[in-house]
């Protein structure tokens, strides 16, 4: 019940600060672009759009969300409440995964790559959780928002460059060890879905664990409270 309330609160926060409006506008723009493209390009471009935007939104926004909650003393209230660190982190992951998955499903439908909606949806949920966790880890290390943006830039390169290479160049199975490539494989319904799922799941679990650990350490520095 407490966890559901946290997720609901986070979704309300995202709605209030324009995430849904923003992605509504972006979905319309992306759909317009997809409609203008030749049929044979649509699938690739849709995968690229899904991968680079809705799936990675947590990595982009997490720094601002954490800074805001710190400045508004929301975090100070949370750490003295019965809410556990893992509940706080999982609520953030789930709430951002909702918007990621909705946008990704819409784009996939228009791009004609939604062969297995359940599998596609799950892949986006895991991918979103992975990138949001990474964003949370970086946000706990950054002192300012500009610093957070700076930290995310090399991570984005490390994630997107091999994934782009996998999508347009070499799709050897060894690349599926990389989380971005395994996400691309799942979105494209490739030949190595099982291995890609396993790889993505392991990466996600690792980063969720890291996010919980780093958030616990971060909380312990706030107002002298113990998490």
């Amino acid at each position, binding site marked *: 019940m407490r966890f559901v309330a946290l997720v609901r609160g986070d979704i309300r926060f995202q709605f209030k*600060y*324009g*995430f849904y409006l*923003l992605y509504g*506008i*972006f979905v319309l*723009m992306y759909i317009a672009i997809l409609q203008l493209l030749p049929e044979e390009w649509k699938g690739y471009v849709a995968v690229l759009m899904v991968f680079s935007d809705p799936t990675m939104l947590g990595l*982009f*926004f997490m*720094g*601002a*969300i954490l*800074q*805001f909650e710190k*400045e508004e003393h929301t975090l100070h209230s949370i750490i003295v409440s019965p809410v556990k660190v893992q509940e706080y982190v999982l609520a953030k992951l789930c709430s951002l995964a909702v918007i990621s998955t909705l946008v990704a499903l819409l784009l996939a439908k228009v791009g004609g790559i939604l062969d297995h909606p359940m599998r596609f949806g799950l892949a986006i949920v895991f991918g979103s959780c992975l990138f949001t966790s990474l964003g949370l880890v970086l946000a706990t290390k950054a002192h*300012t*928002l*500009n*610093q957070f*943006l*700076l930290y995310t*830039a090399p991570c984005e390169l490390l994630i997107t460059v091999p994934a782009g290479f996998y999508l347009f160049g070499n799709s050897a199975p060894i690349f599926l060890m990389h989380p971005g490539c395994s996400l691309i494989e799942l979105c494209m319904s490739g030949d190595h879905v099982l291995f890609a799922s396993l790889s993505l799941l392991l990466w996600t679990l690792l980063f969720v664990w890291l996010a919980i650990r780093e958030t616990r350490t971060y909380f312990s520095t706030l107002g002298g409270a113990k998490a």
Partner: protein
Amino acid sequence: MRAIFISFTMLLRQIRNDGMLVAVSLASVLAGFFFRFAVPALERILCSSLVVDAVLEPYYRLFDLLLILLAPYMLCFAAAMVMLDEHEQGLTRYLSVTPLQTRGYLISRLGLPAGFSALASMLLIGFFRLTPWNGFILAGTSMLSSLCGFSVSLFLFSCSRNKVEGMAMGKLSGLLMIGLPVPFFLHSSWQYLFSLFPSYWLARYALQGSVAWFLTSLATSSAGMFILYRRVVRKLV
């Protein structure tokens, strides 16, 4: 004037401490290297594999324009984020009653970064251009791109109540640049759907060099800035 420069130095120190100043410079230079060396190499590979004369070459001017816009956009984005931070801390009201005043504060936070970024754009194009540039058109294009950056920072600051909204608006502000590729890809009269965007007229000016397009871009930028400036001042005082 002295107060404005001191305030501008404060801004530079702040974004230098974040590492953002180094990042903006580094990102611009890296992008310059990429456009100058990787794009022609990619063009050669594409031409030989697709057996055609040109794939990317007709769009080299667009790559130059992207490079020109990069420094103003990034620097003005960083400056707007600093302003949002200062506004959240209540600093902006204090600064507006010092000798700096509201106008000086805005010049130091938004005007000077935009002005310097125009110079940076010209320097970058000097080193990394893919197409030949007439000095007069380059100066005009850099000036217009700095005005685009200035508009973005006004938009970010005036439309965001905090940094979370600032990030959302930052993402949305990318749409203000949507006019840039339009003259390259859309040749029918549908392109005039984008005529309200200064970036559209900027791209046409860079392509055709007509003073009329320069003035139209200046007029659309000024109209947007006039509306946003009033909102920013209302927010500051």
